[in-house]
């Protein structure tokens, strides 16, 4: 073990330039990868529990809401609600209907504004009941909208996708853009590692030759190389984690969140998940190319 450690150290020193290159490439690529993961989690958070199941939300009247079909100062009646539900269900375009009660809406609201000043600003009674409707074909929304829009007890009909989809498209583009770029860079990092090892097997050719001749095990010969690339990759991963933490703190917590309080934003838990993924990827992407090229260049 002493030998392995001292070899690792001297290897890191000897290949200083290459090690630096590996660290920087790992750093940048893992940062991008982590940002992609954070963007993906941001999309999930924004979509919430309902998004993938609904295309249209039919909000019902409450005492406090105003609408053409509402009686001022009164909640929607049970009768009205049943009629609306029956109308929705009888529409041939409708695939599924979920009713969100006031309590559920309240839960959702508190979750969205958790930690914000708005969290305790409303009561259960002030929340709006709604029907969340999934269509067979999301494009065919106009029939249902015009059908229920004018029914008594309906405050508003909202097609969520129409205004959220562009945002999600951008976020998804960001997510795949960063992950795609990071994959390219990670491949580059893996090739760098493999190249570093190839060079090291030349500079240490005599040593390796003697080790093989006197019967050192393959694993023993490989360990310094393995540790060398692992150390470089982990340094890259730590730097990338720092970059992620800083980005989330600066971009989201300091700027986006105070500005746009109506959204749920990623926080430390999501950042933590991304960091863990980054470290994992760093380990895999240093160990595998090392093993592969070591098997190739350190042949018995």
């Amino acid at each position: 073990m002493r030998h392995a450690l001292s070899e690792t150290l001297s290897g890191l020193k000897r290949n200083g330039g290459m090690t630096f290159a590996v660290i920087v490439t790992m750093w940048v690529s893992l940062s991008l990868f982590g940002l992609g993961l954070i963007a993906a989690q941001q999309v999930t958070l924004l979509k919430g529990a309902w998004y993938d199941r609904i295309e249209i939300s039919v909000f019902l009247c409450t005492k406090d809401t105003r609408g053409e079909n509402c009686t001022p100062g009164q909640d929607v009646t049970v009768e009205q609600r049943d009629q609306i539900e029956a109308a929705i269900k009888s529409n041939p375009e409708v695939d599924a209907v979920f009713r969100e009660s006031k309590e559920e809406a309240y839960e959702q609201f508190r979750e969205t504004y958790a930690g914000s000043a708005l969290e305790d600003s409303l009561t259960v009674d002030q929340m709006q009941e709604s029907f969340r409707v999934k269509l067979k074909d999301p494009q065919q929304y106009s029939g249902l909208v015009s059908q229920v829009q004018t029914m008594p007890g309906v405050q508003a009909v909202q097609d969520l996708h129409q205004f959220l989809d562009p945002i999600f498209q951008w976020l998804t583009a960001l997510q795949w853009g960063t992950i795609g770029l990071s994959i390219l860079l990670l491949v580059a990092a893996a090739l760098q590692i493999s190249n570093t090892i190839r060079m090291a097997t030349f500079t240490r050719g005599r040593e390796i030759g003697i080790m093989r001749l006197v019967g050192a095990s393959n694993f023993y010969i490989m360990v310094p190389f393995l540790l060398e690339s692992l150390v470089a990759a982990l340094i890259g991963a730590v730097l990338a984690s720092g970059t992620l933490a800083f980005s989330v703190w600066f971009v989201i917590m300091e700027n986006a969140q105070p500005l746009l309080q109506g959204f749920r934003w990623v926080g430390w838990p999501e950042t933590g998940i991304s960091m863990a993924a980054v470290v994992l990827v760093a380990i895999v992407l240093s160990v595998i190319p090392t093993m592969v090229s070591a098997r190739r260049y350190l042949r018995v």
Partner: protein
Amino acid sequence: MIKFEDVSRIYEGQTRAALANVTLDIDKGEFVFLVGGSGSGKSTFLKLILREFRPSAGRIYVAGKNVATLPERKIPALRREIGMVSQDFRLLPGKTVFENVAFALQVIGKPRSHIKRVVPDTLELVGLSDKGDRRPDELSGGEQQRVAVARAFVNRPKILLADEPTGNLDPETSVGIMKLLDRINKAEATVVMATHDWAMVDQMRKRVVELENGHVVRDQARGIYGARA
């Protein structure tokens, strides 16, 4: 100790066999000279024992194991039973004599206490007790080769292979190395030495195996370099 049964080796992309249908038996404790011109198959013979590659045909038994079918993961264990000395010494220039010899034990995971005990003994055996802290470039060629022999023998292998060990040395120094190998042989190691050095072979009167174009053309119990029996 070493047994070749109808062994042939053809290198990739070549039609002529480097070694052809060689059958040979080397007993425990024997000292064998392997002679023959360049390209006669001497090095191939030694490399097959070390399992640097497999034979194209035939069986090779080294210390009871069939080397031809030995799985790759068992090669290190095989090589720990074999010491190898080559013409060009192959010492590590950045390490001292002691460290060069100790290296062979370190890399197979021997404990430090064992290394501290065994390396000085081995340096004494090769006559370099007082030069343990020198670097290879401060030594003469003969001394460097002694270090190489010490490294090959420090783990007390059952077999010592030497590929032209005196090839780079003057005759006088060669005699010293030869005596050293003889001493190691007497310490119960089987020694196989490939050589061009006819004077040495004639003087030692050991078993001589001559190779020519990959064939064994002579195997004499107390041979000399040149003459055919």
